[in-house]
C-alpha cells in the first residue's frame, strides 16, 4: 500500500488534517471546491432546501438549506458506466473534519493511480441524511419526498458500492461498521466481509454495534455477548431508520455501509493513515469487481463481525409464530363450519349469520379510519394544537399521535352505537377469523421486507391474537392487551435498546426518549420515506383494534 510508504504523501495528509482541525464545518463550499479541483477532480455542487413537516428537536433544524460538494475521479480509459462513492457528512457544529480531511487525502492519492476501472465520487454532504437524500434523488432524478434540489451536472454511471466515513473524534481506537439502512434493508454481506478481512489484515480493531468480537463462544458470557450484539442489530433493523448516511443508498440497489471511527479509550490507537490504508484496500477490491455484489446474503443477522445467522435459520422462528395464527384461524373456521349443536331450526341459523357481515365490516372500517386519523392528524393539526395548547410543534405532533391512539381504545363503544343489534357468538368468531388472517398476512409480508420488525410485532401481537375472546376476564385481558399493543411495544423496545447498549435510563428519561423516538419515526417517514410509521398507523394498529373490539364484544 503506497499511502503509508510514501513520506511525501503522508506529510501532505498530516498537513491537511492539521489544517482541518480548525473548525471548518458549516460547509466551506468554495474551499472544498478549490481543494478538490487542485487534486485533479471534476468538481460539482448541488444546492438543496427542505422544510421539515415539523421542527426536528434532536438536531435542531426546521428549514434546511445546504450545498453538497462532490468531486469525480474519472477512471482512465473507463467509459463512465460504473462508479464507487466515498462520502463524508459535514454538519455544522459536528466535528467530522477528520473524515473530510481523510477523504481529500485519499482523493489526492487515488488520483495518481492508473488502476481505477470505475469512477470514484468523493462526496461531502451537508446536513447529513437530508443532503444525502437530495444528492441521491438528484443523481437518479427521482423525487420521492418532495425536496427541492438543483439538478446534478456530472455523473459517473451506475453506482456499484458506497462507503460513508464518520470520524467523530481526533483519537480513533476502533472502527465500527454500520449496516442497517432505510426500512431495515441491509447491504450484501460481502461488504461486511470485505471490511472485516481488511481490518484483520491491517490490524485495526473492528466492531459491529460497537461491540468487539469475543472468542469464547462456548462460555455463557461469550454467548450472551453475541446474543446482545445480535439483539442490538434486531432492534436497529426493526426501527426502519437509516443508521448512517449509507442507509439511503440501499433503495437504489447500491451496496453501502458506514464506517465509524470510535474512541473507546483503549491503549491502542489507530492513526488516519491506517484508516486510509483500510479504505484504499476496500476501494481497490471494489474497483476490481467484475459484477455487482450478489453472490452472498442480503438477509442476515450478525452476532459478531465474523459470524452471521442466515435467513434459513431465523425465518423458521418467525414461521412457527405465524403458524399459531393460522392454526387458530383453522380452528375458528372449523367451528364456524360445523352446524351449531342447537335444537333451533335452520331459519334461526340464517338470521344469526346475516348480521355477521355487517358486524365484521363495521369494526374493520372504523378501525381503519382510526388508523388513517393516526396517520394524518398529527401533521395536519400541529398548528391548531400549538395555538391552543402551550406546546411546541414537535410536542404537538407527538402528543396528538398519542391522543389519537388512545382515543382509538373507545372504538368498541362507537362500534356498538353504530350497530343496531347485539353482537352474536357467530359474529365475533367471523371477526376474529378475519382479524387472524389479516394479521398473519400482515406479519408475513412485514417479515419478508424487514424481518426484525415483523418478528418483534409477531412476538407481542400473536399471543394477544391467540388468546383474546369475549369470554376471558375483561379487566385483566384489557390490561394485557394494552401492554401488548404496538405503542407499548415501542416503549419497551426503547428501554430494552438502552439496556442492550449498556446505557440504562430512568423511567422519566425513557419516556422523553420515547416521545422523541415517535417524532423521529414520523420525520423519517416524511424525509426519507421510511415505511414503519405508515405501516403501524395504517395497518398494524387497526388490526390490533380489531382484537380490542373482540374483547369488548357484546
Amino acid at each position, binding site marked *: 500500500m503506497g499511502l503509508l510508504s510514501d513520506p511525501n504523501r503522508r506529510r501532505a495528509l498530516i498537513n491537511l488534517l492539521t489544517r482541518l482541525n480548525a473548525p471548518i464545518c458549516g460547509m466551506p463550499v468554495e474551499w472544498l471546491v478549490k481543494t478538490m479541483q487542485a487534486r*485533479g477532480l471534476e468538481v460539482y455542487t448541488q444546492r438543496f432546501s427542505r422544510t421539515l413537516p415539523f421542527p426536528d428537536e434532536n438536531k435542531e433544524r426546521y428549514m434546511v438549506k445546504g450545498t453538497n460538494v462532490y468531486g469525480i475521479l*474519472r477512471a482512465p*480509459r473507463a*467509459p463512465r458506466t460504473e462508479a464507487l462513492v466515498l462520502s463524508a457528512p459535514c454538519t455544522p457544529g459536528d466535528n467530522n473534519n477528520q473524515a473530510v480531511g481523510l477523504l481529500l487525502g485519499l482523493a489526492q492519492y487515488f488520483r495518481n493511480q492508473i488502476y481505477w476501472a470505475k469512477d470514484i465520487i468523493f462526496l461531502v454532504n451537508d446536513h447529513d441524511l437530508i443532503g444525502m437524500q437530495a444528492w441521491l434523488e438528484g443523481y437518479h432524478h427521482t423525487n420521492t419526498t418532495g425536496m427541492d434540489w438543483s439538478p446534478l451536472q456530472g455523473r459517473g454511471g*451506475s453506482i456499484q458500492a458506497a462507503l460513508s466515513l464518520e470520524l467523530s473524534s481526533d483519537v480513533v481506537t476502533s472502527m465500527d461498521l454500520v449496516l442497517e439502512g432505510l426500512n431495515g434493508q441491509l447491504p450484501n454481506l460481502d461488504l461486511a466481509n470485505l471490511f472485516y478481512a481488511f481490518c484483520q489484515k491491517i490490524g485495526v480493531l473492528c466492531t459491529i454495534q460497537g461491540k468487539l468480537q469475543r472468542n469464547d463462544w462456548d462460555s455463557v458470557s461469550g454467548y450472551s455477548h453475541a446474543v446482545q450484539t445480535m439483539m442490538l442489530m434486531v432492534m436497529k433493523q426493526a426501527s426502519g431508520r437509516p443508521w448512517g448516511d449509507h442507509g439511503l443508498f440501499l433503495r437504489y440497489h447500491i451496496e453501502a455501509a458506514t464506517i465509524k471511527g470510535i474512541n473507546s479509550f483503549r491503549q491502542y490507537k489507530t492513526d488516519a493513515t491506517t484508516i486510509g490504508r483500510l479504505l484504499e484496500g476496500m476501494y481497490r477490491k471494489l474497483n476490481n469487481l467484475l459484477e455487482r455484489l450478489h453472490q452472498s446474503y442480503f438477509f442476515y443477522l450478525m452476532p459478531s463481525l465474523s459470524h452471521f445467522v442466515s435467513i434459513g435459520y431465523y425465518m423458521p422462528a418467525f414461521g412457527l409464530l405465524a403458524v399459531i395464527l393460522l392454526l387458530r384461524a383453522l380452528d375458528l373456521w372449523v367451528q364456524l363450519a360445523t352446524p351449531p349443536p342447537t335444537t333451533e331450526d335452520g331459519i334461526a341459523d340464517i338470521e344469526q349469520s346475516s348480521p355477521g357481515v355487517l358486524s365484521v365490516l363495521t369494526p374493520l372500517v372504523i378501525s381503519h379510519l382510526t388508523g388513517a386519523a393516526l396517520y394524518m392528524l398529527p401533521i395536519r393539526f400541529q398548528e391548531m394544537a400549538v395555538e391552543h395548547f402551550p406546546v411546541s410543534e414537535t410536542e404537538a405532533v407527538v402528543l396528538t399521535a398519542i391522543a389519537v391512539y388512545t382515543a382509538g381504545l373507545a372504538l368498541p363503544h362507537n362500534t356498538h352505537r353504530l350497530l343496531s343489534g347485539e353482537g352474536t357468538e357467530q359474529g365475533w368468531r367471523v371477526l376474529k377469523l378475519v382479524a387472524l388472517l389479516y394479521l398473519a398476512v400482515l406479519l408475513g409480508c412485514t417479515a419478508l421486507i424487514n424481518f426484525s420488525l415483523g418478528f418483534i410485532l409477531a412476538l407481542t401481537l400473536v399471543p394477544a391474537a391467540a388468546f383474546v375472546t369475549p369470554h376471558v376476564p375483561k379487566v385483566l385481558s384489557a390490561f394485557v392487551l394494552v401492554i401488548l399493543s404496538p405503542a407499548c411495544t415501542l416503549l419497551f423496545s426503547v428501554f430494552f435498546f438502552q439496556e442492550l447498549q449498556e446505557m440504562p435510563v430512568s423511567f422519566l428519561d425513557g419516556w422523553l426518549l420515547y416521545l422523541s423516538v415517535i417524532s423521529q419515526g414520523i420525520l423519517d417517514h416524511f424525509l426519507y420515506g421510511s415505511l414503519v410509521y405508515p405501516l403501524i398507523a395504517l395497518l398494524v394498529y387497526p388490526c390490533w383494534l380489531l382484537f380490542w373490539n373482540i374483547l369488548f364484544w357484546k
Partner: protein
Amino acid sequence: MAAHRCCFPVWLFILCSFSLFIIAGSQETTVAPEQHASVLDNPQTAAETAEQTAGESGGVEERRWEGTEVRDAAAQKQAEPAVLQPTPQPKDDFQEELVVRPLHSGDIYASFQFRTLWETDFMRGNKVSHYRLFPKSLGQVISKFSVRELHISFTQGYWRTMQWGQPYLPSPPGAELWVWFQDSVTDVDATWKELTNVLSGIFCASLNFIDSTNTVQPSASFKPLGIGNVTDHRFLRYATLPREIVCTENLTPWKKLLPCGSKAGLAVLLKSEKLFHSSFHSQAVHIRPVCQDWQCKTTSWELRQTLNVVFDLHNSGQGKREWSLFKMFSRTLTEACPLASSSKIYIDITDNPEGEQFELSPATSLLSQAMVLGDRRTFSVYDLTQQDTFGSVRSLNLLIRWKSTEGDMLRPLLHAERYVAGYGLQTGEIHTLMYNHHPYRSFPVLLLDSVPWYLRLYIHTLTVTSKGKDNKPSYIHYQPSKDRVRPHLLEMLVQLPPNSVTEVTVQFERALLKWTEYTPDPNHGFYVGSSVISSLVPSTVAMDTNSTRERPLFSSFFPCKEESSYFVRVYTEPLLVNLPTPDFSMPYNVICLTCTVVAVGYGSLYNLLTRSFQIEEPSPGLAKRIANVIRKMRGVPPL
C-alpha cells in the same frame, strides 16, 4: 518487411502471379493482362500524383489549410524524389502526421493520422491483386463485399468534452462500425454479417457479436463522407459494441496495416505499454472513395488510420507539468517512414503565441494555420523528411514545459450527457441532456438513439424540453424494436436554443429475459450504446470580435459560409442497466428443486387422499363390447 516490399516489387510480382497460377489456373488468363496493364499505367499517372496531393489536402480533408500551408506542401513535394527510391513512380501515396495539443487541464492530446491514397478501382470487375502501400487484407474486403465506405473505431475510455474540447475524430466507447455498401449489393444483411465476421478476424475484436439485434440503419445521422451521391440508407449499416475492451491485441493488427509497420516513421512511437497507460485511447480505420482531381473524373481510395490518445498529467508526471515525446511514448523519433511522401508533427500553439503558457523545444520556425473545428489554430510544424529537423543528435525529442497553470479553455459549444433515472428493476427513464453553450445562436442537432430490445421504450412518454418549455422536434424517425430481432431506433432533429440545456426523456420497461439469454454470472449488467449527436455548430471564429477587428472591413460584414459553421459529432456515455435477474445461485436452485419435489409429492398425496376407489362395474363399455365382438369373430378369447 516494408523495405523488402519496396525493393523487390518484381520479385513480389512473380511470386504473386506464381501462387495465383497454382491456386487457380483458370483465372490466370484474366489476371495476367490486367496486371500488365496496371504496370503500364504507372508512367502516365505518375506526373499527376504530385499535383493532386497538394490540391487534395485542401479539397477533401475536413481541415482546410491556409495558403502558407499549401505552399509548404508544394515545396515539400519537390523534395520528395530525393527521399523516395528511384523505382517507377507509384500511383499510391502515403502520408503520416502527428498532432499534439496541450490541453488546459495539463493533459496532452496526441493524434496520429496515417493516410494511404490509391488510384485504383476495386469495383469495376477487374481483380486487383498487386498491392504496394495499401494493405491487401482491407483491399480484398472492399472488393469482396462491395464496400463503398467503411468506418471502424475501437475506443477505450470516454472523451471528456468539457475538459478537453472537441476531438479531431470523435468515437464512442467500445467498438463502432458503420459501412455503406455499393448499390449493387442485393442482400445487404447477409453481406454485413459476413463482413463483420471478417473484420473481427482482421482486427482481433469481437465484432462477430454484431448481429441484427444491435444493427440499425440510421436515416439521417450517418451520411457518406466520401464522394458518391447514393444516400439510400438501405445500404447503410451501423452498429456499436459498447462493452468491447480495446487492448494491445487490437493495436498490433492495426499497426500491421501501416506500410512501414512500426519499424520506422511516426509509428515507432506506438508502443502499447505507454499507449495504454493513458486516460483515453482510440484507434480507427476509415476507408472511403475520394476524388483524384478537381474535375473528379476518376476516384481513388483513401485509407485513413487514426490513433488518438490523451495522457494524464496526474498519472504520469511527478507533479511536474512537463511533456516530451520520450515521456509520452518512451521513444524518440529518428527518421520518417521512407515510404511516406509527407511526415510531419504539428504542435498546437494557438494559446501560446508568445510562449507564456509553455515552452517548446527544439524551437521551429515553420508555422502553419488551419481552421480546425470552427476555430483558427496555429501550429508549429516539424517536417521529419528534412534531416535538419533531427539536429545534431540525430533524434527528435519534442519537449513541452508548462510555465503557468492559468488560462481557460473556450467552452465547447455542444456537449451532451446521458443517464438512467429512477430506481427499481421494473421501469426507468433515459435522460439525454444536450447543452448549447453558444451565447446567441441556436442550431439544430440530429440525435440518434439505438436502444436494445430488452429495454422496451414507451415512445408516447418521449418529451423534449428546453428552458422549461416543450421543444417539438421537426423530424422524428422511430423504428420500434422486435424482441430478439432488432433494436429501437430513434432519430430526431431538434433545434437547440442558445445558451440552454435540452432534455430528452423517454421511459422504458425492463424486459424479463429467457434464462439462457442472461450473460454468464460475472457481468456488470447490460450495456446500451452511446447516442450520437451530429450537428453543424456555429463557428467560434464568427464569435470572435478580435479577429474581425483585424480583418479588412469589406471582408467581415457577412459571415463567411465555410467559416460560419462546422460539423461536430458528439457521443454520449454508454449506459449500464440492470435487468431483473433471477438468482442463479445455489439457494435459487434449491428453491426450484424443492418446489418441484413438493409439487410432485403433494400432487400424488392429494390425489391419493381425494380419489375415491371403486370396483369397476361388471358391465363392459361400448368400446369393449365392440372389441369383444371383433375378437370373437377372429377367434381370440374376449377381454
